[in-house]
């Protein structure tokens, strides 16, 4: 489909479509000798987030990816890709480990949002996200965040405080789902396509706002080609960030978010 003829809601649907690759695919394809590391050391292990260590080319990395699974059984096990507090805490534990060993962190984001349920609230869903935002702002190692599917609000941002934030062309990133926005504002979830337009949630919108750094095109490309383009970009970003000091890295990360919505 040509870029211009695709509506925002087309992209929302593409980002959500059942065939779309999520974190697991990119980890499998991009990371050699991957070892999955489980658990938050506090309460449990969240299958909606796959995390671990491996190599990209010869570079050791910590990778963290949201994954909803393929079969219905797997989707239920992975909670349809909606992370619980344990998922965010596992991610933070492994980011701290990456900091200790000087490994870059790569996050793949694709989820309708943080899991919304009684247990998640009981175990501090808000606190878990807040802690990630706070700690990622000071993490002394490079962070690259890639939105591969639906970037659903705070649950996506909890892995999205990156030095570089990149979106695949047909991913979306929004403060609220178009359905949620339409039902609050217009009392009609069927107006989601209009809300999707109004929310300006496509990769090209976010790039034009300066909120993200790069769009990886998907049009007329196979999944493998998209992944290899993404891998190339990640490697070039890692080598760029290796050349600057930690202080400079952290100052740049701070400024990157500091200027969003600041008066001109």
């Amino acid at each position: 489909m040509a870029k211009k003829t695709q509506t925002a809601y087309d992209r929302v649907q593409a980002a959500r479509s059942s065939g779309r690759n999520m974190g697991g695919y990119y980890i499998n394809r991009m990371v050699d000798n991957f070892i999955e590391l489980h658990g938050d050391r506090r309460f449990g292990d969240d299958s909606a987030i796959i995390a671990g260590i491996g190599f990209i080319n010869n570079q050791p990395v910590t990778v963290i990816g949201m994954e909803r699974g393929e079969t219905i059984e797997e989707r239920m096990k992975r909670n349809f890709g909606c992370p619980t507090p344990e998922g965010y805490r596992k991610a933070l534990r492994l980011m701290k480990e990456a900091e200790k060993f000087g490994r870059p962190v790569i996050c793949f984001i694709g989820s309708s949002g943080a899991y919304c349920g009684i247990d998640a609230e009981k175990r501090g869903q808000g606190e878990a996200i807040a802690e990630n935002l706070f700690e990622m702002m000071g993490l002394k190692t490079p962070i690259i965040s890639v939105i591969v599917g639906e970037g659903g609000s705070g649950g996506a941002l909890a892995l999205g405080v990156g030095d570089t934030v990149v979106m695949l062309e047909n991913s979306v990133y929004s403060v609220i789902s178009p359905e949620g926005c339409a039902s609050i504002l217009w009392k009609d979830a069927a107006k989601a396509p209009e809300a999707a337009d109004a929310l300006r949630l496509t990769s090209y919108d976010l790039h034009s706002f300066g909120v993200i750094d790069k769009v990886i095109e998907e049009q007329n490309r196979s999944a493998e080609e998209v992944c290899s383009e993404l891998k190339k970009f990640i490697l070039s970003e890692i080598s760029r960030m290796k050349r600057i000091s930690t202080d400079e890295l952290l100052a740049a990360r701070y400024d990157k978010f500091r200027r969003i919505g600041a008066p001109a």
Partner: protein
Amino acid sequence: MNIIELLGFGKTKPAPAVCKKCGKETDGIELLENAMICPHCDTYMRMGAMERIALIADKGTFTELFAKVKETNPIDFPGYEAKLKEAKKQSNLSEAVVCGTCEIESQPCAIFVMDSKFMMGSMGTVVGEKITSLFEEATRKGLPVIGFTTSGGARMQEGIFSLMQMAKVSGAAKRHSDSKNLYVTVLTDPTTGGVTASFAMQGDIIIAEPNALVGFAGARVIQQTTGEKLPEGFQRSEFLLEHGFVDVIEDRRRLRYTLANILRMHSSKGAKSS
């Protein structure tokens, strides 16, 4: 401290108010003197930012900061300008947070107070910018930050810009913390969504008012999504205390004392100040 005087009710009396819980009417002055707690049934009524500051700050010490940060319509959301105009008129506020410096029992601090009268205390770029600037100012001056939260969450009319304020404020709070400065949050009814999932939960000490609704996802959304029956007291301060997410629940009438006490324990002057 005379709250009536502080709020500038010289000639005009504050209006009487009816408690939503017990339905009884209370005289405006009596209600303010009781910190907006219904004297008949102890229900906490919502408090505006300026009333809050009058209740907490030493008389004449509050200086407002960053009052002039202007709204924009960053994603050209249809109808947003009109909505802001209406919110200003209805609330008599310029935005959903008031920031500044003050003293509490002679202890200097930076303070931000959110106000649910302005678009449900939702967080957009102005709220994010003001609170970020306050943390930066407090870091420069080595001041503790006291933050009163109340919010329906992110302001969807500002789209991704609103979401990014969570990261922006978190960055400033982190720098403030890394410089060994104190941050105390006071969670008031209601504190939800993106504010809960960022600076509300980042305090060194987290205080909550009794029975305040505090959570990430909305109760109605949880019920609709999961079909589970919500337990009694779900997402109230006492529920968060029980599950380990709040340090202390404090009576609103004792907050000033408790905050001053905490400030004194973290002051470089320590026990020497009264």
